[in-house]
């Protein structure tokens, strides 16, 4: 595919600039991810079949794309996260009341022990940060598109409240995330505050299970975690299918399937997470 011919600005044909392999299309400046064009009206483009990587990711669809791709990445992460944490339920009398968090501690140890997973952790943070930054930029751009609000807004007529409140829900989740990282990740990675060693089969590990038990003895913490899970549930209810739409799933059959999977996923993940503090607080485990 030929990249592109030229850009018309008014009557003039201007060739694009290529610096270090990056194309700069004249007549447009990138600013904070928002396109600002030097001419207020139409700049005729002809035969442009060319998009810079930058453009691909910062145009309105590009922004969505970043949100969608990072969203799907985070959705995958949540499965892993919930899977590992669900190991605490191995201590339920139904399974093995003698487990005492052994399964969970081993899994948590595994997650912190290999270089590969450490690298993935960096990727995860990059994804989260991208998701947050792009999310806020998107919200900012979208809020700027209507300066005068309706006296009588549409409300829930035609859309779900949580679909319209992704930024709010995301902010709640972010707040929760900060608390949550403070509780577990900071001490697991850096301070080791409140972490006792525990030995399984001759290997010394951190007793994350005990840390959980201590953390969730306080009622307010449990409540905060529950609220976090509720926010997560609604965020996922919209985010799951929306992400797949954004990457271009338009087939009705698959969309319907994704809707169901999305609803199921959102509920199971959120409920699983919510059950953890509750189970510990109510002494179902540990």
């Amino acid at each position, binding site marked *: 595919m030929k990249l592109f011919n030229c850009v018309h600005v008014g*009557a003039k044909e201007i060739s694009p600039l290529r610096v270090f392999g990056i194309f700069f299309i004249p007549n447009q400046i990138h600013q904070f991810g928002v396109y600002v064009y030097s001419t207020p009206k*139409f700049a*005729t483009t*002809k035969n442009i079949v060319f998009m810079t990587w930058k453009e691909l990711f910062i145009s309105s669809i590009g922004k969505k794309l970043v949100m969608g791709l990072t969203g799907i990445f985070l959705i995958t992460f949540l499965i892993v996260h919930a899977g590992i944490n669900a190991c605490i339920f191995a201590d339920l009398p139904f399974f093995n009341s003698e487990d005492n968090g052994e399964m969970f501690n081993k899994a948590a140890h595994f997650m912190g022990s290999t270089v590969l997973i450490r690298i993935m952790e960096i990727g995860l943070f990059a994804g989260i940060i991208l998701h947050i930054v792009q999310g806020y930029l998107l919200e900012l751009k979208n809020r700027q598109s209507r300066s005068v609000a309706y006296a009588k807004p549409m409300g829930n007529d035609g859309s779900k409240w949580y679909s319209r409140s992704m930024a709010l829900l995301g902010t709640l989740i972010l707040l929760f995330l900060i608390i949550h990282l403070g509780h577990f990740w900071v001490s697991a990675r850096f301070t080791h505050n409140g972490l006792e060693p525990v030995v399984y089969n001759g290997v010394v590990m951190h007793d994350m299970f005990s840390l959980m038990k201590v953390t969730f003895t306080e009622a307010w913490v449990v409540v905060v975690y529950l609220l976090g899970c509720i926010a997560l549930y609604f965020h996922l209810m919209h985010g799951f299918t929306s992400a797949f739409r954004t990457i271009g799933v338009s087939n009705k059959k698959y969309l319907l399937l994704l809707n169901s999977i999305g609803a199921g996923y959102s509920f199971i993940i959120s409920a699983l997470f919510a059950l953890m503090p509750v189970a510990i607080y109510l002494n179902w485990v540990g």
Partner: protein
Amino acid sequence: MLNSKIPAGPLETKWSKYKSTCKLVNPANKRKLEVIIVGTGLAGASAAASLAELGYKVKAFCFQDSPRRAHSIAAQGGINAAKNYQNDGDSTYRLFYDTIKGGDYRAREGNVHRLAEVSGNIIDQCVAQGVPFAREYGGLLSNRSFGGTQVQRTFYAAGQTGQQLLIGAYQALERQVALGNVTMYSRHEMLDIVMIEGKARGIICRNLVNGELERHFGHAVLLCSGGYGNVFYLSTNAMGSNVTAAWKAHKKGAYFANPCFTQIHPTCIPVSGDHQSKLTLMSESLRNDGRIWVPKQAGDPRKPNEIPEEERDYYLERRYPAFGNLVPRDVASRAAKERCDAGYGVGTSKQAVYLDYADAIKRYGKIEAGKKGLSSTDEATIIALGKDVVKEKYGNLFDMYQKITGENPYEVPMRIYPAVHYTMGGLWVDYELMTTVPGLYALGEANFSDHGANRLGASALMQGLADGYFVIPYTIGNYLSDEIHVKPIATDHPAFAETEKQVRERIEQLMNIKGTQTVESFHKRLGKIIWDKCGMARNEQGLKQAIEEVRQLKKEFWSDVRIPGNVNEYNPELDKANRVADFIELGELMCLDALTREESCGGHFREEHQTEEGEALRHDDNFMFVSAWELKNEHDWQLHKEDLNYEVVKPSQRSYK
């Protein structure tokens, strides 16, 4: 003497000979020539796109907020083309013949044959543009049949063919806008033609957003401004559709042809009260399956479903056993009026007849039951099955009816009544689509040329696109090739200043009347006069009376109209006043034309001229001509006759018995 410039030679070769012998403009010169196009419907948008593609500098104007809104968009049924994809014997000649006959032998053979010749190219062009016509499972184009023909030649896109064709032309136009070949002026209304040395050289238009008058120069001016059906106030035209552009041209010397030829469509939703602002058409295709009736007892107060079969008068089937409910539009309309005038009308207004689907539902239900192998099934199942079939075929029309009337047409018969739909008359043009003013052209419904006294269904779209895509690109070159030495005339030329001054004075005059009656009330009164006396049936006495009444109305309008607001702002009432003032003048000419045409033909029915059975009676010996009217003075027109010579087709009396 009117020269229609029909090329000599056999009918089949006239257009090809014209194309190969007309003068051309070389590409370098095209860039120097500017063309103004007023109106962006099918004719205007297609002409603007095609001329811009050729290299002309085009300026296009429309009063709507976007060229995509033009009223061509509302055409439902389809577009005819002599493709003969169905292998059912269609040909260019047959399309030509059907159109001439459908027009009741009042159209030019040469023009109509050209129309039939290019009809196939239109379909090709539209498909190439991405118009999503209906297709068969094999992926090929689908056709349906339409009134007045025996072949299936109508291409369609569900019930929205006009919309899809217009969007195709609009996209082609916007492409040229993007390429800088067309400058688009939306929310602009043309208010006069600028004449320099006897040629049309530009227009004065009003920017409808800020009220400013603008001057635009063009080597030629194309009027593609549609028909004048809104002279009746109530019609199926859009609220903004108007005669102003054509009328201004008429005032500058362009002859107006056959103004009394107006088409009344039989299947519209009836008027519900004085508040009614416009009428809505229900596609003619409904008559394929529906049965039309009125009660046998005048003023029967019963609900339609309570009236037993033997007390219903299926008057079309009774009067026209051969064609039944499928008689042409003019015949069906007049028959409905006859019943209602005789006191058999239904509904609250008594100005409606029933269009009943109960039989069709049962018939389709039985077929469906047969297909499903349900040999003995109950009535309710059959009706349910039948309703599904009808829904699939006409669902969108039934929904529309239900929205407007609040009645469920699957349960109770629809009420319909004829309404003004299309105007066959318009600016007189020659074979090249030029009016009697040099450099001034009229395309599409704005001209008079192709439909004679009555238009067949699915032919309006065909004509608009034929004119814009395939006729004007050739014929305009024949004129502009002599204009290549004319430098663009600066708009400070005295002729521009003078014309703008006249426009400004007229606007100020209107604004300064500061009377007591609204523009709308005048329009309603005009519509009533024209509808009552120059509508579906006309007679000498009524027409004479109507002329007096319209003249009186004009006086009253110019002394008592009230227009709110100011000149230099967005002022829809002022726009409307400008249009209604022109409609009033046109109304008088329509009645005059109807009065002088002492025969019945097509949409024009003079009560004095009918057969013993009440059918239209043509007088070919005296009226085989086009009436082209030249405006001399206020209330004073001179008639020019363009004789119609039928060299190929033999005119005969239409019979649908």
